[in-house]
């Protein structure tokens, strides 16, 4: 049953990805509207899958790579749908749905049985650590997607090319708000994830902080986002600069994971 739900969700993400892309190409808003409903449908199926899945295997969500990816896709869709209620930002779906689709495809294929967290490391805080960090990262990613679209629309308006694709994009204010809200929620969640991880590390590894490459890089990423949030809230960064730097921050985040998993050996090598 839950596998069926997973497949339904996967199919839903696929259909709405195609729908959003087509609506951009032929410039019909109706198609994007339908795609949003399909995305909602996929999201509901996905939620049910996660629920059944966690009931069957206990409360340990996101214990292997497959679950983590699927949970990320779920969070991404959910957060986007929540934004959709508030703002007219259907076009963001054109970026969100393929991302969710890719996460789901990867989750569905090769990595299905890949390394579980060693049994001795499992416990209550692991779920908190993984879930909070993942959803936080998804929100930070969404902030950057909004930032990308902000910069595109900003460029169109500055260059006075306001017909064409610019019509399909949401207003600058909407993009800025999504960027702001995603950062505002994503950063604390990410922080909670890091702290939970650290506390758990104190219990199972005997030390909360080991100067492990993964931990160092994570700290760096955390500092970048802390700085960005500070600039937004205290200095009053808005619009162009905030969008630009939220993209830079995501690049640092992605680079952090790429570098550490390729170049360093770490004791935290399961996700």
């Amino acid at each position, binding site marked *: 049953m839950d596998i069926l739900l997973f497949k339904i969700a996967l199919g839903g993400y696929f259909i709405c990805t195609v729908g959003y892309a087509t609506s951009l190409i032929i410039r019909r808003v109706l198609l994007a509207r339908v795609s949003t409903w399909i995305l909602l449908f996929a999201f509901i199926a996905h939620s049910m899958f996660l629920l059944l899945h966690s009931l069957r295997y206990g409360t340990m969500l996101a214990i292997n790579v497959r679950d983590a990816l699927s949970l990320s896709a779920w969070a991404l869709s959910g957060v986007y749908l929540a934004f959709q209620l508030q703002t*007219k930002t259907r076009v963001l779906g054109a970026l969100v749905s393929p991302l969710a689709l890719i996460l789901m495809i990867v989750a569905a294929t090769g990595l299905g049985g890949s390394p579980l967290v060693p049994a001795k490391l499992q416990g209550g805080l692991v779920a908190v650590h993984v879930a909070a960090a993942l959803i936080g990262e998804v929100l930070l990613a969404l902030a950057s997607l909004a930032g990308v679209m902000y910069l595109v629309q900003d460029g169109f308006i500055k260059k*006075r090319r306001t*017909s064409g694709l610019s019509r399909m994009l949401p*207003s600058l*204010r909407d993009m800025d708000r999504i960027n702001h809200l995603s950062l505002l929620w994503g950063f604390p969640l990410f922080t909670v994830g890091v702290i939970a991880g650290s506390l758990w590390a104190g219990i199972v590894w005997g030390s909360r902080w080991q100067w492990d490459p993964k931990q160092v890089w994570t700290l760096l990423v955390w500092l970048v986002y802390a700085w960005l949030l500070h600039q937004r809230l205290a200095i009053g*960064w*808005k619009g*162009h600069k905030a969008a630009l730097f939220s993209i830079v921050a995501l690049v640092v985040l992605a680079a952090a994971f790429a570098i550490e998993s390729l170049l360093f050996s770490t004791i935290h090598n399961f996700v």
Partner: protein
Amino acid sequence: MNVILIGMNHKTAPLEIRERLSLACGGDVNPLAEMKKISCVSEAFFLSTCNRVEAMVGASDESEVLHALRSFIFRQGNLTDEEMQSCLYVYRNKEAVRHLFRVASSLDSLVMGEPQILGQIKDAYRRAAEENATGIMFNRIIHLAFRVAKRVRTETGIAGNAVSVSFAAVELAKKIFGTLKGKTILLIGAGEMSELAGRHLLNHGAGRVLIANRTYRRAIQIAEEFQGEAVAFEDVPEILKEVDIVISSTGSPGYVVTTEMVTAALHRRKNRLLFLIDIAVPRDIEPAAGDVDNVYLYNIDDLQGIVDDNMKGRQLEASKAEAIIAEEVDRYEAWVNSLQVVPTIVSLREKTQIIVKGEMERLSARFRNMTGEDRESMAILIDSVVNKILHDPITHLKEESEQQAALPYVAALRRLFDLDGDK
């Protein structure tokens, strides 16, 4: 019956002539009543706007009605014969209907895609209906015209994008701010175009208007019109920190708003987005101000460029609209053809035959015990009853058709017997 449309529009007649005619027709003369007085006219419709005058009639004798229409109505405008020759166009039947469809869809308008014309046609139709000037034909034609206009509006982008400078400004503001609700506008200087733009922004939800003018008294005057607030001209740099949209149109030879002012203001407004519209020639706002992050500067040429692009877009959409119109004209033609007497009689007969056959089959089980002979005489009985009932209507229909007046009867018959299968 022929449908004949005679009229003039902004392309064929100069404003002065259209003005004379529409004034005359708006006065004591009731054009619909005048048109109905023409002996061969059975239905009439009259539309007069500042860009066109159209008179459409359903009449049996074309040359008589053309002559009468020309003399009755267009004499009202004191037109000379040459003027009438050069300004008037005449369309017949299918082409008249096509013309009306094009007018209703705003393809024939001065600003293609403008929405007012449909409302004007609706008003004209209501007047005609009140005067009992329209009948089966025109009711159908005009309702089809509404339908065509709606299709064109929803299925093409003809009415999509702003085609005036002030609407282009509103569209841009929405692209930046999402909604204009609660936004503050600063008007610097006075001028028709800037006031129009300000008004459009207000109509789209903008909250507050501030007015700055070199002469403070004038600022107060304009502020009253807008129910806004007058502010001192010297305070503009200061005020930049609290407004969202600036429309500038002073006669100043130098810059009224400099990049330096904008940068300083932006810092103090914590980088909130700022939309600057420079309508003045020579320019009021230093062009480099548009390079500052979160500041969007459009001058009059930029806005005009958007309008021109949108206009081109509308023209592209017009060909789609023509296709829709062609489709609906075909539909109209099919309907008109169905109103011929002979096909109506044929379909009436067919319908009764189908009913008789259906009922016989339905009840055949009950007649099992009847002899073949009985069954035959029963069939003959039913047929002759049906034929007797149909005899009078069909005879009268044929008579009317010889006198060219069958149309209402045909239409009524088709409706009463549901021969078109509409409902």
